[in-house]
């Protein structure tokens, strides 16, 4: 077996340094193999973006101060490495497309300046030619003209592609995509997903793909990790999770996906709302909303491996195959 590219162990992110500060992420562990695409699914507020940003140490100072655990990139711990070393991993080895493409570009700099800054760090010589090529790669028409434009002059779909071009400029091995399609309308979503798949193949990248949409997971991911209230509750190969979801939360999420495969924007999937940071219940955080809950569930469930590669944290795995309710 090859070693994982990225290996996260017991990642806990608290709002501040104190041990009793509320936690956003609670002992998250996951592995990502070279070339693999892992989907990270969960309702709003479950901590997906915090997890993605922690990998590049991009969370706010309060959260970085409250971060414990280990994020090993090719064996080196990102959380403790010196800034100078981290800078060479950022962009060159791991890159990220942020959740908000409209706000990700510097409003006072031209597209060309922002793209070339990344290309220069990637060691490109002929910057303007490289910049045009980078825009062509993400299907932006008349790239030479676009390079002189400013962010406010472009549509959302265009900005999203420019942000992707910047993310890819240094040819990273891992691309973290934080809900890259959420801000786009349906037809552009589809195009953009296809573009990402093509780019993934061309750059031989692994991907950490954050979404709340199982339809997107089915299209682009190899494996999926389901998050609830700052924890990973179930992981497994996409086909396996779709066919045999075992965690009550995963089952409920899947049951709420309409047969078109497109989840609406922020869908209220299950009765009740996920608990807010600082108000998460003891034991299994899902128990107030879970139909299968028992007295056991006030204790934290252990991680168990149902089948090779399919793990979950639940006292009462739902073994029977998933039925559309």
């Amino acid at each position: 077996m090859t070693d994982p590219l990225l290996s996260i162990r017991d990642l806990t992110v608290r709002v501040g340094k104190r041990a009793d500060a509320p936690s956003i992420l609670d002992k998250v562990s996951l592995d990502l193999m070279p070339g693999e695409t892992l989907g990270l699914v969960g309702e709003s507020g479950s901590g997906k973006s915090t997890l993605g940003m922690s990998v590049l140490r991009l969370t706010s100072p309060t959260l970085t101060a409250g971060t414990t655990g280990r994020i090993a990139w090719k064996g080196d711990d990102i959380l403790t490495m010196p800034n100078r070393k981290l800078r060479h991993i950022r962009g060159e080895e791991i890159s990220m497309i942020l959740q908000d493409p409209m706000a990700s570009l510097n409003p006072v700099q031209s597209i060309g300046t922002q793209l070339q800054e990344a290309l220069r760090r990637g060691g490109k010589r002929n910057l303007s030619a490289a910049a045009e090529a980078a825009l062509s790669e993400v299907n932006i028409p008349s790239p030479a003209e676009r390079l002189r434009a400013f962010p406010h002059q472009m549509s959302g779909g265009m900005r999203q592609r420019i942000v992707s071009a910047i993310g890819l400029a240094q040819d990273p091995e891992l691309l973290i995509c934080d809900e890259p399609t959420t801000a786009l309308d349906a037809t552009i979503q589809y195009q953009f997903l296809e573009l990402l798949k093509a780019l993934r193949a061309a750059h031989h990248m692994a991907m950490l793909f954050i979404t709340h949409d199982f339809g997107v997971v089915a299209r682009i991911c190899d494996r999926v990790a389901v998050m609830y209230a700052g924890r990973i509750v179930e992981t497994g190969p996409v086909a396996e999770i779709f066919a045999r979801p075992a965690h009550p939360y995963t089952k409920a999420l899947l049951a709420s996906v309409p047969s078109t495969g497109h989840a609406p924007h922020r869908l209220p999937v299950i009765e009740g709302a996920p608990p807010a940071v600082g108000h998460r219940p003891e034991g299994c955080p899902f128990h107030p909303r879970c139909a299968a809950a028992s007295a056991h569930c006030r204790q934290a469930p252990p991680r168990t491996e149902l089948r090779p590669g399919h793990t979950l944290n639940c006292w009462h795995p739902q073994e029977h195959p998933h039925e559309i309710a």
Partner: protein
Amino acid sequence: MLKHLAGRLAEALVALLLMSLVIFLLSRVIGDPVALLLSDSATEADRQMLIAQLGLDQPGWRQYLTFLGNALKGDFGQSVTAGREDALHLVLSRLPASLSLAGIALLFTLVVGILLGVLAAVTRGTVADLAVRLLALLGQSAPSFWLGIMLIYLFAVKLGWLPTSGFGGAVYYVLPALTLGLFTLAAITRLVRASMLEALGSEYVKLARIKGVSEWAVVLRHALGNSLIPVVTFMGTFFATMITGAVVVETVFAWPGIGRLAYESIMARDFPVIQTVVLVITAFFILANLIVDLLYLAIDPRMRARS
């Protein structure tokens, strides 16, 4: 872009015209120029003659047009004080002292204010940040006349490092420029700190970090440019603060500028000079706002698109 500028220029002219009307009306309401100009021994006949001579027997709009026409010719009347100096000439002769003081104060304020604001933001939560914030708070709460007197006491009287007052070479500028600039310096520091913090938490700064850009470049190339936009926005207010501050500071430091001239002419009820000072200041204020407009266009591409 040219159209935008032409529009702003037209606005400026209207503003000047309005200001001249206000000045004209005020000078008629506040004082009786005839009483001021006549000596105590003057007779009623002298009085009537003077009224006719000054055109005060004419209807109001007529008087205003005359006033405006004279103003356009550069004739703002004469000072009523003993010298009977030409008002415009008097004001213009005092202008260089004021401009050099305000220019130095503004430059110092901008440079130091931006530096301190950036420093506080990047060292957020540390002792350095706390010290800067405390200084800024003091700078914004201390009245400038009190500050001026304290500075004179400390640096001129106690330590003897700097002259107490007066006009001359570089050393003469230190205390008045400090006094004049400190309030604005504090304001700029707080403004830059707040907008730097906002920029440093923004998504585009995250994207810059994702590229692997060094922390220096993140601060200087990405965060700073954006956090100067609010400084430019408030520039007009800063000018106004400096102009009003100049009256106090120039008086405290016996600085021969138009601020002190304004104070002196008010004390002497010298209306022609007061009017001229106010008009000249208004003209500068309008000019300053035009410059701010141009700065805006230079710094923010979104403004360029809109205009």
